[in-house]
């Protein structure tokens, strides 16, 4: 298949990242798909976070170089939005929705339970980041099922504190991953 010639040197598929990490190739492909337009910055950052889990400084620099943007701009945009994280996540994640409906239905108590439970489990975790990351969400749009918690990407509705606790205790027995 004939490839469209790109003027940017970053588009050259022959130049692999020195680390040999394949994920950089995928990041390149995503930038290429956006034709290296600076306005695609947020899209590219989404892809970068999907690939690497979180946005390290060198990845931000890599993106800045690729889209020909000053690093300050990339850092400024990445830190502005809640979606982007700059520290590694735990083996398991637990996102507690704190939207209005969940709040009215006891989201705060639930969050406290989840936090306490995670703190207990994280005490026993090693150096590779926390075992469980607890995050809050603004609103997941599943207000009909409030209160809502997302356990490792699975949205669960009408979660009682006891249920959340049982679920998290279950992770500990299975170990990380």
């Amino acid at each position, binding site marked *: 298949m004939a490839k469209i010639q790109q003027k940017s040197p970053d588009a050259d598929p022959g130049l692999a990242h020195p680390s040999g990490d394949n994920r950089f190739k995928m990041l390149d492909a995503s930038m290429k798909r956006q034709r290296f337009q600076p306005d695609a910055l947020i899209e590219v950052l989404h892809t970068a976070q999907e690939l690497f889990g979180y946005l390290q400084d060198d990845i931000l620099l890599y993106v800045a170089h690729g889209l020909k943007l000053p690093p300050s701009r990339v850092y400024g945009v990445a830190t*502005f939005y*809640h979606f982007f994280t700059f520290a590694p996540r735990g083996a398991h994640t637990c996102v507690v929705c704190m939207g209005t*409906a969940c709040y009215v239905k006891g989201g705060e108590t639930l969050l406290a339970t989840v936090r306490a439970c995670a703190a207990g489990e994280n005490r026993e975790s090693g150096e590779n980041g926390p075992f469980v990351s607890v995050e809050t969400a603004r609103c997941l749009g599943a207000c009909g099922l409030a209160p809502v918690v997302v356990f490792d990407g699975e*949205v669960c509705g009408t979660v009682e504190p006891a249920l959340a606790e049982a679920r998290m205790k279950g992770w500990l027995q299975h170990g990380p991953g």
Partner: protein
Amino acid sequence: MDLAELQEIGEKELAARKPIRIRVCTAAGCLSSGALDVQKRLEEAVERASLGATVEVCAVGCMRLCCEGPLVQLDPESSLYERVSSDQAPSIVAGLNGGAVTARRCDPGRPFFARQKSIVLENCGAIEPERIESYIAAGGYRALYEVVREMNPAEVIDAVTRSGLRGRRGAGYPTGLKWGMVAKNQGPHKYVVCNADEGDPGAFMDRSVLESDPHRVLEGMAIAAYAVGADLGYIYVRGEYPVAIRRLETGIRQARRLGLLGTQIFESPFNFRVDLRIGAGAFVCGEETALLASIEGGRGSPRPRPPYPAASGLWGNPTLINNVETFANIPVIIRNGPDWFAAIGTEKSKGTKVFALAGKIRNTGLVEVPMGTSLREIVEEIGGGAPEGGKIKAVQTGGPSGGCIPAAALDTPVDYESLVQLGSIMGSGGMIVMDETTNMVDVAKFFMEFCMDESCGKCIPCRAGTVQLHRLLARITQRKATADDLARLESLCQMVKLTSLCGLGQSAPNPVLSTLRYFRNEYLELLGDDAATPSSTM
């Protein structure tokens, strides 16, 4: 693509339809209650019973009663089942052969369904959102054909103006007027932007519409683009809505394949391309100038208006921004005529409004009613009132920019003006019901914390004011505040309201002001015993 081909697709779809259809709700709410499993079990059961020739299982969009999901409905007998578990699913198929159905029946005639009027949601739960043929069979893209081939842009704008449609998010600006302004302004390009950044906590109407009927929004955008002379459109969706994003991507791909989007739509000179932009979690991006900055790949900081986006929007070009629900109203206005639409609703607010009903209420879910329906009807009759004998204390509308309406004002007919008079706003349509156990000062503090976190930091009244307001509210809830603090809270509210740059700051004090107006005694009860001594810090 011409009209005959479009009709042929629709007729083929209808002809291929099997006599009995089992519709399973696969919107985000039911998905998280296990709807996919139910769908799989139903399909297996159909196959096992060798009913494949007469029965089909379809994944449809939102059936509205989210709290009783997963919902399954049978056509044509229209019996509805609620809280269907994957174990109960095969019994529904067995029921077709006279077997016993173990799934719980839900009465489709109950007030929750019977009291609603569907315009925007007419296809939700009826069509398959991931198949364009299903939308075309329901009459989809017919309005776009009519507009592109038989009307000139001025006539389209005139029709929308005469319908009396107003923006379904925030202030309720007349849609026809906005379109006219964008059409009048000149630029090398013009853009149409769909605001699907439904940031209000407690609102999920736009998510449901996008997940259940994505083509309707695309059709509305294309009609708008034709009317204002735009050739490129963006849909700005929240990153928190993965299902909606996936269905929109599918929808755009399908429409492009059939020549309903892209170049030379319906073999006319009209071109329109749509791209998706995924939000990254910033409430302020619901503000139109911040949203545009975010589409351009920058920080979502608002800028002063004028110039309005209608004159100078994306990359300095005239840009039309409307909300999901506004675009979803457009095809039906073209199809049924502006006079039909203008006959629904009140004098100043036409048509229907979709509300997302949640909180301390029996029936939570999606509700569409004509403008002018009373809050009591929505909350008590459709919503079924507070659960387990509780008593409704207040209804919160408009999210962090809105206010709390006390139970005493429930007889107010809902339209843009009446809600503003009550100190709230229509907003995007989130409606959270609170009962006697909810502390209103706590609610005000909750919203202020939200605004404090979400303030973009550009202007000082909002950046610093929301922090100070939150601190004062925290003092009050900790019983450490004095009467002085309360006075300071009120004056600071006015200051933030009057001097902030954008809608976020200007409306951030609304929840405090409205709770102070209706539930002042709750604030007074929390004032400390040492109310006489003036406080030193703020």
